[in-house]
């Protein structure tokens, strides 16, 4: 086993490149998916039935389609319609579109169970539209949804691993390459898991901080 790890050490630069790609994809993907998810939650909660139906249709479609399939469609399908991305962009687009739907559903779930009274108070004080959402509703949702959003952020980090099929050189891609080259699966997996774990820790620390903030207000 020690020899396996020394083989991995020899390929450290490849793993590091993969890690950097994973971090970048996750960071940009998470930020966009969270922001867009919050925006998408607005039509999901709208009183207008058409808006609600259309946005819910999108959310449910994304929840039904396998991520791999979506990635395939974006990367191999869209070029047929004349829309051509390089693999990095295609991967990012797939991640953002897919996870936006999940984020939106998480936010909608919490939102719909917020105390009606505090929202009514805001409406009575003249809040409406975006300001009502951004100042009164979303802060409460975000404080309540910490662990759930943390879940999804971790899903995003792990979704980046699927992009290996469209040849995005991320962490799993690098790990697979090393394990197949030397035939040392377990040492590679353990190394990769530890690296993913470190990334997920960042999310967990963030969630913990949000929980603290929320705790002081309960």
């Amino acid at each position, binding site marked *: 086993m020690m*020899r*396996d790890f020394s*083989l991995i050490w020899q390929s450290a630069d490849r793993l590091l490149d993969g890690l950097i790609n994973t971090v970048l994809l996750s960071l940009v993907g998470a930020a966009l998916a969270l922001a867009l998810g919050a925006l998408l939650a607005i039509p999901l909660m709208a009183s207008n039935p058409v808006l609600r139906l259309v946005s819910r249709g999108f959310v449910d479609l994304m929840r039904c389609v396998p991520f791999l399939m979506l990635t395939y469609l974006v990367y*191999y399908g869209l*070029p047929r319609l004349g829309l051509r991305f390089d*693999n990095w962009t295609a991967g990012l687009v797939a991640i953002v579109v897919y996870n936006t739907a999940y984020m939106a559903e998480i936010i909608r779930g919490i939102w719909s169970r917020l105390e009606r009274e505090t929202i009514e108070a805001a409406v009575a004080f003249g809040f409406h539209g975006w300001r009502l959402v951004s100042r009164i509703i979303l802060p409460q949702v975000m404080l309540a949804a910490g662990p759930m959003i943390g879940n999804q952020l971790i899903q995003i980090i792990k979704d980046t691993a699927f992009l*290996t*099929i*469209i*040849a995005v*050189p991320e962490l799993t*891609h690098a790990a*697979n*390459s*090393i*394990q*197949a*080259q*030397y*035939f*040392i*699966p*377990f040492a590679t*997996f353990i190394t990769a898991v530890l690296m993913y774990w470190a990334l997920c820790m960042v999310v967990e620390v963030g969630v913990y901080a949000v929980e603290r903030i929320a705790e002081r207000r309960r």
Partner: protein
Amino acid sequence: ATLEEIKARGYMVVATEDDYKPFEFLEDGKPTGFDNELLVELRKFVPFEIRQEIIPWSGILAGVASGKYDMALTAVIITKPRMETLAFTTPIADATHFYVKRKDDSSIKEIKDLTGKKVGVQTGSAQLDKLPELQVMLDKTGGKLGEVVQYGSYPEAYQDLALGRLDYVVNTIINLRSLVKDKPEVFELGQAVSGRTVPAWAIKKGNTELVELINAFLAEQKKNGNLAKLQEKWFGQSFPDLPVHFEP
């Protein structure tokens, strides 16, 4: 397990792949292909039962490494790095590397035209390890290797080649011939881009007695002409001059 252990418990476990045409694949749910036909013969040859597991490539790697499977009965290309952890049997075919290009791409006619072009290979594959050999060939004509894109598996690489995101893909002659035969209107086979490359079955390093038993089986198959017959059937040609021991 060592040969002794296998004999004691009465069976050995081999792993084959499920999507590696023409070596191993499934036809209406039943395993078939070159290796699977050899497996039928192997069963007759060895004095114990053989249990077969059908597993994707990544599972085979882990299974052989952990000792759950005694042998990867699939075309594992013999490379230097792999010999650090694996023992190989007598080669079962010739897998010298060729390139394939789009049929409508007239800019590539011979090896030197590959200079600076975008190439696709499978990640962590033997093919990837062979690219330095192409580099050497290109050096001779003053060219250089272009960008290398690694894929999880070959079907995606072929897709990207067809879509024009790649200029050529490097794989073994056997796989490429099978591909071009299926899609002659899209792809066209090029020339060899590596020296001799051979695949063999893989066993965990150190299990010499088992390797010897399997080698004896393969020698018998060679002698009775069955190996050549199967190669002809599945690869479209036989490889009579395969070495018994191969050092990459």
